[in-house]
């Protein structure tokens, strides 16, 4: 087993990986940019080294700096997490050169399956159903437009190197094609340094359902079941669950087998996710392969009881998948919501800043994967994901009830978060019936909100009192100098004892 692992990432996933390592008795090495010195992944690591300024290109995307740290610190493996360099074949290549194990698939498998077009070709060969479209990137817009016409609108343009909806455009009709092509290409260029896009038939209101696979270096490949990820805002998953309410045992077997066939065809090793679109008739179409750990991996962990990160490490160390894992039966239901530092009332604009106060929910069925703490300042330079709140329950209903309960307990002040978005989603009748698709949330948010109702009696009064009380403490404090949080708290203590005795 490895002695020391470098985690080439930051935020909650770096913390998640450090935890797995520490539980395995493996030393952890963190890397950090200038604005991440105080971040939790640095505090929890055994070692931590600076790798440059805040912008990712100058730090977290700098393979040279990361390999340099790995050598200096004497690491025998590197875990890339997700995002940043996780799907960049240059990192495993550099690892191979340095004689350091990359915790993930081989360079070849990553290239064979990572890009959307290559993945699609592989899927065809492996007899995995795919969405009609072009396998290869086409340089010439006119040519692509002709194809789109013959295929029939709506179609979708996607970046070859893409992910997370960047460089992706849905084209409703022929007139909109040229603009969409331009936008997709330039966005792809900015996001991935690769302007190439390809064409696909656009499925109306499909579900996004993905299969978690694991393959060891000894030829065994297993499916750990599906995740339902249809609740997306602008192609970004925001709520994920397992199992999917619509997947039947038969469909689960079919999708699992297809995913395993694909992995075998690509000579894939370690953790991977095969994403499918599923239409109303429960036909499934290959979408793409993510050759890495997924943000939403915890929902699979909660229902299978497996620790996917430890599993990744074991496989990278050459261990075999025990046959028992093939017979894993999911238990209960798990659901994850992604809490972001963004303002749902202001078009989900990112709201970094200092976390002034914070109270996190705990208790039965609640898991929190996060990289934040009270007093920490959320940097503006990175993805504003604060925490992943994951609930488990015996039924989907219990799981949702626990999520709601936990969201009610979760308080974070100083920055805005998207908690209210989940309060809403988790009470929407369509969501509760799981009548959802990849556009469902965007449609919901586009709909006019139901007419506002007066808050239940008491809330307004209490709010007025709180505002006045705040004013009172401020007035008192303004007489003094220095920061006041602590001071006012003390004063209030005094005041409280008196208020208690109010008739």
């Amino acid at each position: 087993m490895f002695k020391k692992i470098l985690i080439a990432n930051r935020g909650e996933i770096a913390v998640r990986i450090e935890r797995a390592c520490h539980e395995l008795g493996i030393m952890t090495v963190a890397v950090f940019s200038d604005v991440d010195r105080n971040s939790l992944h640095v505090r929890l690591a055994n070692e931590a080294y600076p790798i440059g300024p805040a912008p990712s290109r100058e730090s977290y995307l700098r393979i040279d700096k990361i390999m340099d740290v790995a050598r200096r610190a004497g690491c025998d493996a590197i875990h890339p997490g997700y995002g940043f360099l996780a799907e960049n074949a240059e990192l495993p290549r550099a690892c191979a050169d340095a004689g350091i194990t990359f915790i993930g698939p081989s360079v070849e498998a990553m290239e064979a399956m990572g890009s959307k077009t290559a993945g699609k070709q592989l899927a065809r060969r492996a007899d995995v159903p795919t969405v009609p479209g072009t396998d290869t990137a086409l340089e010439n817009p006119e040519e692509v437009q002709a194809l789109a016409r013959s295929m029939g609108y709506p179609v979708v343009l996607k970046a070859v190197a893409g992910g997370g909806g960047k460089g992706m455009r849905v084209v409703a009709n022929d007139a909109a094609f040229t603009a969409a092509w331009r936008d997709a290409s330039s966005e792809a260029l900015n996001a991935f340094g690769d302007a190439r896009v390809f064409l696909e038939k656009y499925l109306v209101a499909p579900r996004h359902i993905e299969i978690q696979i694991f393959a060891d270096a000894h030829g065994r490949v297993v499916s750990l079941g599906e995740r339902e990820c249809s609740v997306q805002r602008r192609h970004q998953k925001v709520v994920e669950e397992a199992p999917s309410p619509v997947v039947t045992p038969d469909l689960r077997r079919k999708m699992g087998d297809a995913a395993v066939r694909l992995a075998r065809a690509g000579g894939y090793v370690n953790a991977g996710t095969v994403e499918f679109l599923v239409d109303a008739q429960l036909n499934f179409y290959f979408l793409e392969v993510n050759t890495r750990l997924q943000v939403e991996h915890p929902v699979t962990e909660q229902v299978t009881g497996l620790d996917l990160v430890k599993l990744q490490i074991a496989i990278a160390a050459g261990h075999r998948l025990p046959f028992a894992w093939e017979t894993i039966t999911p238990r209960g239901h798990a659901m994850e919501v992604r809490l972001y530092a963004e303002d749902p009332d202001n078009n989900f604009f990112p709201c970094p800043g200092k976390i002034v106060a914070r109270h996190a929910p705990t208790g039965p069925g609640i898991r929190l994967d996060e990289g934040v703490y009270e007093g920490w300042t959320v940097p503006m330079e990175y993805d504003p994901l604060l925490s992943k709140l994951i609930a488990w329950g015996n039924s989907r209903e219990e799981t949702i009830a626990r999520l709601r309960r936990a969201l009610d307990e979760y308080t974070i002040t100083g920055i805005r978060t998207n908690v209210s978005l989940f309060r809403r989603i988790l009470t929407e009748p369509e969501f509760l019936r799981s009548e959802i698709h990849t556009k469902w949330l965007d449609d919901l948010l586009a709909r006019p909100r139901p007419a506002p109702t007066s808050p239940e009696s008491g809330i307004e009064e209490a709010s007025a009192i709180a505002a006045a009380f705040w004013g009172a403490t401020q007035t008192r404090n303004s007489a003094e100098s220095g920061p006041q949080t602590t001071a006012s708290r003390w004063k209030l203590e005094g005041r409280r004892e008196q208020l208690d005795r109010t008739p």
Partner: protein
Amino acid sequence: MKFEVHLTGTVGTKTHVVDFEEHENGHRVTLDGKLIDADVVQVAANTISILLDGKSYEIHVTPMIDGKLKVQTGPEEFTAEVQDPRAWRGRKHGAQEAQGRQQVMSPMPGKVIRLLVNVGDEVEAGQGLVVVEAMKMQNEIRSPKKGKVERMLVSEGQNVNAGEALAWVE
């Protein structure tokens, strides 16, 4: 200590008068003229716990750039404007512009990098008073009203917390 609170929610703005009155055995809270059973405690930064007739409310108060307060409790959210008690004489109701002595607060923790006015200066509503830098962004804190700068409570280079008073405009 009497406060007038203009509370704006999804169903419009209402005005409440809250009075924290000292008396021999502690404080009494009066809301819109009625003595009420309210137990008010700040339990954490920006977090106030209120027991109102036994109902337990947890309320988060966050000052905003314009000196108003964002007041949140669970799904409900209001914007509150709190009138300083000393500005009690002769204000017009529902006026567009803040009345009386206004306390200008920092909406975020940060560092005061520039004072734009001095005590005694006449200022317009919306005129910048102080520049607070936070997360590489410079934020100009503006006057909520036309009036005179009565007090500057911070100096350049000083670090301030969210909600800390910066100046008074009379």
